[in-house]
Structures are given as structure tokens and as C-alpha cells.
């Protein structure tokens, strides 16, 4: 998932060849580990098949260049505006946000607000669940849910920090 949208982010406003994608993708994913080149090429093949990426000519060093199709841009922007549910372990809002920053995405504040709503929904659900668990005497799961709530508090604080810095003159 991250590889697909990472590639689309990198091709959003420039052409790249495979090796460039590998270097920049490692940077974009930060501490999430390195991507192997095979994975990049299979993902590129799929993106081309789905007509989201267009393969271009060979450059002067005989490397194949790729670019993002208009439909690829639309698809990427749609993904950016989808808040990330907390039950999903496949995706990570921080990655999505860094992709948005990379392409200077115009709707970042909407993204943040939607994600905030997602966090708040989760806070409301988990707080209810947590007290129900405690009343049932399930101490361990009560503590586990409390831990998840502390993570959500950190996420909420982080979103506020980003928003506060955006409104700074």
C-alpha cells in the first residue's frame, strides 16, 4: 500500500526512473524500512496496467522514465483525503501526511480535520468500551484499551501542533 502511493507521490510533479524512485521512496518511508527494487518494479507494472502511471521513453543514460497520469493524480488526491481508520494496521496517517506535504497538497487542513474526527470517534468508542470492560472485571483489557487511548491523545496533540504551526504568520 505505502509503496503504491509513495511512487504516485514521487511522480506527482516530476518524471523519475526506477532507481530514483528507490532512493526517494526510502527517504519518504523514513524509519519504516527499505523497499526492495523488485517490489518497486512489480508495483510500477501494476500502476501502468491500471493506467495510473505512464511509461515514457528511455533517457540519455538508457533508463526508462515514468510519470503520473491525470487519473493517477486524481487517485492519489482521493487517497489523501481519506481519513485513516485506527483498526487498520496497513496504513498510517503520518505517511499519508508526509506524502501530502511532498506534493504541497492544497487540502491539508481538511485532511487534518477529518483525521481528527476519526481520532475523536475512536476516543468516544474506546472510552465507553474501557469502562464496560472494567465493570465486567476485565482488568487486562481495560489497561490495554487505556494504552491505546494514550496513543490517541498523542495523535490528537500532534494534529493540533501541525494546525497551530500552519496558522502562524
Amino acid at each position, binding site marked *: 500500500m505505502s509503496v503504491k502511493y509513495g511512487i504516485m507521490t514521487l511522480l506527482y510533479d516530476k518524471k523519475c526512473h526506477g532507481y530514483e524512485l528507490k532512493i526517494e521512496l526510502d527517504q519518504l518511508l523514513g524509519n519504516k524500512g527499505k523497499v526492495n527494487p523488485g517490489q518497486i518494479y512489480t508495483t510500477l507494472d501494476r500502476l501502468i496496467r491500471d493506467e495510473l502511471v505512464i511509461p515514457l521513453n528511455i533517457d540519455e543514460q538508457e533508463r526508462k522514465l515514468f510519470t503520473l497520469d491525470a487519473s493517477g493524480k486524481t487517485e492519489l488526491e482521493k487517497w489523501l483525503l481519506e481519513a485513516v481508520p485506527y483498526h487498520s494496521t496497513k496504513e498510517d496517517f503520518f505517511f499519508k501526511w508526509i506524502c501530502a506535504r511532498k506534493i504541497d497538497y492544497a487540502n491539508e487542513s481538511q485532511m487534518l*480535520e*477529518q483525521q*481528527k*474526527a476519526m481520532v475523536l470517534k475512536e476516543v468516544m468508542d474506546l472510552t465507553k468500551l474501557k469502562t464496560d470492560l472494567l465493570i465486567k472485571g476485565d482488568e487486562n483489557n481495560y489497561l490495554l484499551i487505556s494504552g491505546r487511548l494514550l496513543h490517541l491523545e498523542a495523535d490528537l496533540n500532534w494534529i493540533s501542533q501541525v494546525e497551530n504551526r500552519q496558522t502562524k504568520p
Partner: protein
Amino acid sequence: MIKVSGLVKSFTQGKNITEVLKDVDLKIEEGEFVAIMGPSGSGKSTLLQLLGGLDSPTNGKIEIDGKAISEMSENQRTIFRRKNIGIIFQNYQLLNNLTVEENIAFPLYADGTLDKEKMKEVKELIQAVGLNELNKKQANLLSGGQQQRVAIARSLVNHPGVLLADEPTGNLDRSKAEEILLLLTQFHKKNNQTIVMVTHDIFAAGFADKIILFKDGTIEQIISREEENYAQYLANFMA
């Protein structure tokens, strides 16, 4: 049940009249746990004071369990409050030179209803809020969290049907706040107590059944979990 209609409260200072509550309509069912959130200065504490009969409205009606407290004299209100309403203030408001036990028993003492049987209940309450070891300690020697526990126990000593709490966790860290909220939830579930809690903290408000979003002296929105897009409203309100 708490029923508020057309509630207005203004304060007069010299020639200035400030309308702090503007036409508040509100219904809270018996046994409901409701949180009130809103910016500072929006009138939340004023609303709570009026619900608790500590002050009287400029206009409008407040009914608690069918009794119109807005139409009572100050003395009638005080008597009604002592029997039916528990209040937890933002800054605890304990009697500093009294012990934990004396503070908690104080409402009974003031009512002249403190007897052996009641004293037994006081001891049980002290146990319930986890202050056993400290019951002979003077209130001003306690930590914030401990003082808040005393305030909770004191507010419950008369078995009020309605509990009003103004930022009960405002000065506490996350884990101390959690213990206080669990105490409130426990009493609420056990005694079917109606709770109205003012808080600025969504992690505290999450304990409630409903959240009232309050702004500029009036209710902007009432949020309940069943509603489809309530989290969007919340996110927008908290922006």
C-alpha cells in the same frame, strides 16, 4: 429529570449588563451522564450554578424532578439543594482546617442529621473513594487528587439524585483524572445518578452518554453517539 427552558442570566456591573446565558433550552433524563464542553467564558459554570440553585436566573425556568427551583425563594432552594443535588466545584472548596472525615460528613452535620447510622455511611463512602488511610488527615495537607476525592464523597453523602461537577479533573494528570472519572461512573451506574459534568477534556467527556457543545451562552449542538457524523461536529467545534 432536569428541564431548562428559556434560561437567561445577566450580570450587572455599574451601567454594563452582560448576558452570560442566552435562551438555554435543555432536557436531561434521569440517570443520564452528560458532559458540557465549550470555550472558556462561554457560561458553563454559570449554567451549573443555576442548575445547582446557587444563584437564580434572570429569566426562564429550571425544573428538577418536577420542582421549579427557579421559582423558589433562596431558602427553599438551599433546602432543596441539600436534599437533591450534589456539587463538585472546580477548586474543591473543602474546609481546610477540618479532616477528611469531617469534610465529608459536613453536609449532614449542617443538616443536623448526623447520627451513628449516617456516620457508618460516611465511613463507607471514604472507603469507596479510597481515602481510608487519610480519614483523620487535615484537608489542606492532601494532594489535588485526594482533595477531589473528598469533594466527591462530600457531594454524595446526601444521596443526591443529581450530581453537578465543574471541571472535576481540570487540575489532575491523566491517571489521577482517570481514577476520578471511574469513581463518578461507578456511582452513576450503581445509583442511577444523573451527572452533569463540565469539562474541556474530550477524554473525560468520553465517559458521558451525551456531550453538550456550549458556546457564547447558548447550546450549539447536543452530541449523542448514535448520531451518524457526530465526530465531525466535535472535530469542527474543537478546532
